[in-house]
């Protein structure tokens, strides 16, 4: 029996529009806005809208621009207002150049000028009256060298507390930070410099940072180098200093004048000249400065002392020079320091042992820990690893142990230990021991990354924090850093494992295989991976070897890969 065909619904056509102007049957509506010939041009509308006051303008959505987000009904037009005010502030800041005036000799001079003042022609050393005549609305303020020195000292104290135990102010405008042994706390030298510059920017200072082997070289490169952030690699001091002018060496004015007279422009000009004649021409002080910058003469930094840093000291009756005696002193000092730390509720992250030799030299060793601790046996083990780096010379007569970087450490709950009597194994201790021997970078954990591409799924992470796990896809135990190509592969397309292949000059006959596991390229990383596909197979050869091989491409589309076969890993 044939089914009745559905009848198309037909509405009765009503010519009388009534309340609605559209005929019921649909179709063309007379008088539609788009059909009007006298419709206003879009440019006219826009000009009319532009003529309206700001509060009466229709929102973007009503104008038919869909890309604009609708304004929240409870929010006014504040953003435009704010933007204007920020602009106005910036303009006002640039409009009022600032210069500091101080008394140099018997006349008043400009001693410092801000960037906007400098762009108006105000230079340091110009007479104050001259500057006033040049720019009438220049903001003149008297220079306060004492306040500057106090601020610099405050910065040095902050550096001692936050960055490094050995920091000193170098008046009038610099800081010396000794990064030895504590750059790991800030993520390395470069990262530390970037953080330092960011800090100065937030505080309103313009900073130039240089890291070098000697304080003199860092001083010179920071002031006369090209970039605002320079890290001179260890041992490359001469190359870094060579192109700088000789004024970078902190010479006095007499030596500078003499140098100009004899034609010494850069530091590189001084290097080949014989020492004796150079000393007669520039003075012995200039030679010392040169040697200090190049590392020939030691220039110890006298650190800004902070009363808050825990320090213990032992002065010995007789100088000692054997390893056993030094170890004994270390143990005594650590016991003293542990009491100090316990009283304050602190744990040490960095320890610094300074031994004063009888010839006046200093022997400094430093250790770092991955967690704050005040356990004497653990710290002693770390310090003992450093004994061979102490050169006792004729004997050491005084030891000072400083904990420059400390963190709060409270009492630890031991309830679980008493209940189970299990040994609590703290990975941080192991990490410290291993890192003390081979360096902090060589100790790591492997953490998962959210990526299906096998070589990207693993990243090195901090050795103390425990990472998570990976999805349970079958994975080999050894993965080649670069997949190795397979030759003469016989495999059925599109989804069968290979039956034979050649790899490293040997032929493999495959007897079993699992797969494919398809892994797509990550299009958000590279353009080349947009269509890329790898089909992974786990195969076993007739001798019992299990391998992880993959084919580029899915076997249908040529954009997904060139159908080449690769070896990527080995199963057990």
């Amino acid at each position, binding site marked *: 029996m044939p089914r009745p065909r559905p009848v198309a619904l037909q509405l009765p056509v009503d010519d009388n529009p009534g309340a609605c102007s559209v005929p019921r049957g649909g179709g063309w509506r007379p008088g539609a806005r788009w059909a009007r010939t006298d419709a206003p041009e879009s440019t006219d509308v826009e000009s009319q809208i532009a003529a309206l006051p700001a509060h009466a303008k229709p929102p973007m959505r009503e104008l038919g621009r869909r890309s604009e987000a609708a304004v929240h009904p409870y929010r006014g037009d504040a953003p435009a207002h704010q933007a204007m005010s920020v602009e106005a502030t910036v303009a006002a800041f640039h409009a009022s150049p600032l210069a500091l005036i101080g008394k140099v000799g018997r006349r008043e001079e400009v001693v410092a000028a801000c960037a906007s003042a400098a762009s108006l022609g105000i230079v340091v050393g110009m007479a104050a009256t001259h500057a006033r005549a040049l720019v009438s609305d220049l903001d003149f303020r008297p220079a306060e060298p004492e306040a500057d020195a106090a601020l610099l000292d405050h910065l040095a104290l902050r550096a001692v507390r936050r960055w490094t135990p050995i920091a000193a102010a170098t008046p009038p405008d610099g800081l010396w930070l000794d990064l030895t042994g504590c750059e790991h706390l800030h993520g390395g030298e470069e990262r530390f410099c970037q953080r330092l510059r960011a800090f100065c920017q937030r505080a309103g200072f313009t900073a130039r940072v240089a890291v070098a082997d000697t304080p003199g070289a860092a001083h010179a490169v920071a002031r006369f180098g090209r970039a605002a952030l320079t890290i001179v690699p260890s041992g490359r001091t001469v190359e870094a200093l060579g192109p700088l002018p000789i004024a970078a060496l902190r010479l006095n004015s007499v030596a500078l004048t003499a140098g100009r007279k004899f034609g010494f422009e850069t530091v590189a000009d001084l290097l080949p000249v014989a020492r004796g004649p150079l000393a007669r021409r520039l003075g012995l002080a200039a030679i010392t400065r040169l040697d200090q910058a190049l590392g020939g003469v030691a220039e110890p930094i006298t650190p800004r002392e902070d009363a808050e840093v825990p320090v213990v000291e032992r002065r010995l009756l007789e100088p000692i020079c054997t390893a056993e005696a030094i170890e004994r002193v270390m143990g005594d000092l650590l016991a003293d320091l542990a009491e100090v730390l316990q009283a304050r509720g602190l744990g040490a992250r960095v320890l610094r042992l300074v031994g004063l030799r009888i010839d006046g030299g200093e022997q400094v060793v430093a250790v770092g820990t991955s967690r704050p601790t005040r356990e004497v046996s653990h710290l002693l083990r770390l310090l003992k690893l450093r004994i061979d780096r102490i050169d006792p010379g004729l004997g050491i007569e005084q030891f000072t142990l400083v904990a420059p970087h400390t963190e709060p450490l409270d009492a630890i709950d031991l309830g679980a230990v008493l209940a189970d009597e299990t040994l609590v194994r703290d990975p941080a201790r192991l990490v410290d021991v291993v890192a003390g021997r*081979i360096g902090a970078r060589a100790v*790591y954990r492997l953490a998962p990354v959210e990526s299906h591409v096998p070589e990207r799924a693993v990243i090195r992470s901090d050795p103390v924090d425990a990472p998570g796990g990976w999805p349970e896809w079958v994975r080999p135990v050894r993965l080649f850093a670069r997949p190795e190509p397979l030759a003469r592969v016989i495999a059925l397309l599109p989804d069968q494992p290979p039956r034979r292949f050649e790899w490293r000059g040997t032929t493999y006959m495959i007897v079993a295989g699992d797969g494919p596991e398809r892994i797509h390229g990550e299009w958000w990383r590279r353009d080349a991976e947009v269509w890329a596909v790898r089909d992974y197979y786990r195969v076993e050869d007739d001798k*019992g070897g299990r391998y992880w091989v993959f084919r580029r491409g899915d076997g249908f589309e040529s954009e997904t890969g060139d159908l080449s076969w690769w070896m990527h890993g080995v*199963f*057990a």
Partner: protein
Amino acid sequence: MFAASTNLQHSLAQLRTIAVPVADYRVLPFEIQGIDSRLSGGGLRTGALHEAAAHSCSVVDDAATTLFLAGIAARESARTGGPVLWASCRNDLYAPGLEQAGLLSANVIYAQPLDDSALLAVIEDAVRDGTPSAVIAEARQVSMVATRRLQLVAADADIPVLLLRRRRGREHDPLGEPSAAWTRWRIASAPSQRLNVAGVGRPRWSVELARQRSGTSFSMIVEGCDETGCLAVPAALGHRTAETAGPARYAAA
């Protein structure tokens, strides 16, 4: 008469305790009768140095040796609950693969020294520290003196030190060199059981105990680590273990 027989029984038991060496050390059993009964002490001694080397210089045997040691370390870590230190000069280990042998990434700390001498110093320091539950080291050149030191510190700290001895060349046999290790293993990869469906079966290894202190050597075929690091004995045809009740892949005839 009765008193005499009880006397005899008593003296027999006493004699037996004297004849059978008593293990006064902690052992880590493999949970496999065929291996545990042939190991002196009924399992792998925890406070000792154990060496393993690949049977040939192929990467496959090397991977089997790696996973064999990883399984031992995983079981020891699960028992004592401490981190495992993995010291190696190379970095081609793939952590997701180790995780499938029971060695979770949260339990492993990796150390990558520059050379073998630094590596031996590192693992000695770590064992002396007593924090790790097991130490795995991959080394190429280990002298007799170094193995003796490692054995002493391992016995002192009761921590297993598992040394993967690498070959220095195609003909070089690491187990041919003298060593103070408690046991020395030679591991090779073996063909897995063919399934009646397409696919690769559970991996099998040929495990050979080349030398052990106060015991004899043996060799056998075992099935590789499961996700807890445990080995298994292959189920012989017709004598299937309880595992055959599980997935159909093991029920191949």
